[in-house]
């Protein structure tokens, strides 16, 4: 019996996440038919769009065995800068550019410290988390800043396009762009090479520092976009957004998608699946009225399982 299961499991493994998502959707909708309603399903995806955008952008960093703990404060900072630019009378594109640029700048700093100075990513992004949060608090203070008017800006978070909420559309765009980067440009191969064997990549003539610069900038880019969407959704900007735990959700999605934290194979597509899975689990547990700590424990267990499975492969 076991002889039959192991090869079966091995063949199913790459599809495991898809199967799990379908399975859980079926289970939840059996327990609670309202789960399958289109509003609910769309709601699920909208809930995870922000984490999803950050997760697909952080996938490359994690594929190289690195990590970016600073995404939360970057999210806050980007939203703050964009909104302040708007309030200062700048046009929409300029304000968006300002918010995104500040994020990319932070990402380039991370990439520089990690790629050129060779400092460990965990510590660099941990320190930058503090630096950026403090900076955001200086720029915006601890208060909330309401967004008045600026309907083109708030459309980003609250509007719809072709019947789908904007956040979902933006998630789709960013995910597609990230997938494009991974599969249609050399970046994907370079990142996979560094993640599999950084030393061999260096000795094969790869300019590892350049790639690292790019991927940390990309990770912060994702956080900036998420920040703009968030502020637009809640019509408020605050330096305290992206509080502790945001980066964990992002990392968890990537890990659930099957990308190993110790670097190597990974894919934007799998991260998207991981994000959707997280969304299904969150929604399912909410609909079933599972208490908060039960949810946390379930999530923790799932992540632990995914981690162990990824490492043992």
């Amino acid at each position, binding site marked *: 019996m076991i002889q039959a299961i192991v090869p079966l499991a091995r063949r199913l493994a790459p599809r495991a996440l898809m199967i799990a998502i379908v399975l859980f959707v079926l289970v939840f909708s059996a327990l609670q038919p309202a789960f399958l309603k289109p509003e609910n399903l769309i709601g699920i995806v909208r809930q995870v769009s922000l984490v999803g955008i950050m997760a697909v952008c952080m996938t490359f960093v994690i594929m190289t065995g690195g990590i970016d703990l600073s995404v939360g404060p970057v999210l806050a900072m980007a939203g703050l800068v964009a909104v302040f630019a708007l309030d200062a009378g700048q046009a929409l594109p300029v304000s968006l550019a300002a918010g995104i640029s500040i994020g990319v700048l932070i990402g380039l700093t991370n990439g520089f410290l990690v790629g050129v100075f060779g400092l460990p990513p965990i510590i660099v992004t941990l320190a930058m988390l503090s630096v950026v949060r403090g900076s955001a608090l200086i720029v915006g203070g601890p208060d909330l800043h309401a967004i008045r008017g600026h309907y083109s800006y708030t459309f980003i978070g609250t509007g719809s396009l072709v019947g789908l909420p904007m956040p979902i559309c933006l998630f789709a765009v960013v995910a597609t762009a990230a997938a494009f980067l991974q599969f249609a440009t050399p970046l994907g191969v370079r990142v996979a090479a560094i993640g599999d064997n950084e030393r061999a990549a260096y000795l094969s003539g790869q300019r590892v520092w350049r790639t690292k610069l790019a991927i940390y900038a990309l990770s912060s880019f994702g956080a900036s976009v998420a920040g703009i969407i968030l502020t637009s959704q809640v019509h408020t900007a605050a330096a305290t957004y992206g509080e502790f735990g945001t980066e964990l959700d992002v990392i968890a999605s990537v890990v659930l998608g099957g990308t190993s934290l110790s670097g190597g*194979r990974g894919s934007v597509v799998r991260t998207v699946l991981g994000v959707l899975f997280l969304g299904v689990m969150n929604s399912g547990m909410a609909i079933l009225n599972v208490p908060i700590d039960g949810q946390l424990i379930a999530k923790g267990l799932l992540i632990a399982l995914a981690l162990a499975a990824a490492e043992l492969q």
Partner: protein
Amino acid sequence: MASSSQAFEAATSLIEARGLTKVYGDLVALDNVDFCLRRGEVRALLGSNGAGKSTLIKILTGAVAPSAGGIWLEGKPMPLGRPEETIRRGVACIYQHSNLAPAMTVLDNIFLGRQPTNWFGLLDRKRQRREAVALLSHYGIELDLDATVGELSTVKQKEVEIAKALAINAKVLLMDEPTGWLAASDVRRLHETIRQLKSRGVGIVYISHMLDEISGICDTMTIMRDGCVIAEADVAAMARSELVRLMVGERLARESGSASAVKRRPRGDGTIRLSVRDYSRNGVFRDVSFDLYAGEIFCLTGLIGSKRTELLRSLFGAEPHDGGRVELDGRPIRPRSPAAAMAAGFGLAPEDRHRDGLMLNLSVTENLVMTILGRFVRGILLMHGAIEASSARSIAALGIHPPDGSRPVRLLSGGNQQKVLVGKWLNLGPRVLALDEPTVGVDVGAKAEIYAILRAERDRGVAVLIVSSDLEEVMTIADRIGVMASGRLTATHDATDVSMGQLVAEIGAAE
């Protein structure tokens, strides 16, 4: 009569190993080896690189567990693959690579893991120092017990390793190339120590290429090749020529390069491709000067520890250097990174294909194009079609099996992995192609194929620089041969002018 000699055997037998086998994937490092050692016996372990000597030692010390076979120490079975057990039972080893904690003191390293404690469980520092001082003076080793090991010279570090092994007061002492860096006086002292231990009944295994030393200190010898023991004899009973014959194989011992049917082209087409002058790196290699011609294969050989790999790495920009000039096609080059060296036309296939050469979880195609990725980029797009075509061409030309570009490299056999490694560097189309131990861990069939590939490159005008410790390989493929010892280039020969025996002598010559 039989029983008393059996009793004698039992009384004096120290180590008995039967059927030791070690397989790494599809590579058989050790093939059903039996090994015995008696009290007070000094056994030389001989064989060329890859013969299995280091693997045997690692199994005897428990560093590695064998795939099959067993070991008995003084008649009692030994647990396998457990270093703490073998040390407890009295087997000490001086390994080839450094086994010291560089940030700790000499005293700490000598007693690593075995510090004496008082009855509180605390370290008995005074006793530790007393024992260390006594040990060092007894064996005539001079060391500053409070020096930081990492800051000592290589020679002194070797002495710390020796002291560390002696401190175990072992019944069996294994030494893997112990004298590589030692000066003549130190070697004499080490041999005195060995004689002392021998008279106390300690069994000693001595791996070395230095045939002169072996005749001086060893009683018996075991000769290995390709993972098997091919001969055992008393040292006194065997002539030097017979010894060389056994170590490197019948055919090659008698031949020199000229007798071989393969055409040699020393100095290729006559143009100097790479010129190296007074190339130095402090503490590693010194004043290395040689010319490499277009269209020739130049083999750099020597013992482990002669720093040939370091030389290649510095030339390739992967490691720094402190002096000297390098010119490629007449232009001076000073690459600061592998990428820069590659841009100048220099490629290096590293020694350790798992650690430095290949991305094991990536596909064959991805590995093959890793060095030339930039050539397949149009704008920002990667040209997948062109990459597949290039990969298919390489796979066919190199005979990589199975011919599937999408297969992860780790699923290939060792020989095929090596072909992917070589292929990736051929794809670069370098003017100078350097290879560090190009056929290590590769089966005979793949070896021949790789030699053919390298000769084809040479015939196309590429300057090929090979570092190899395998004398059989050197004699097979080299047009010219260089000998390096302790970081210096000591001799250069045309392959046709030198015999295997001469090479062995030059390599093993004391400084």
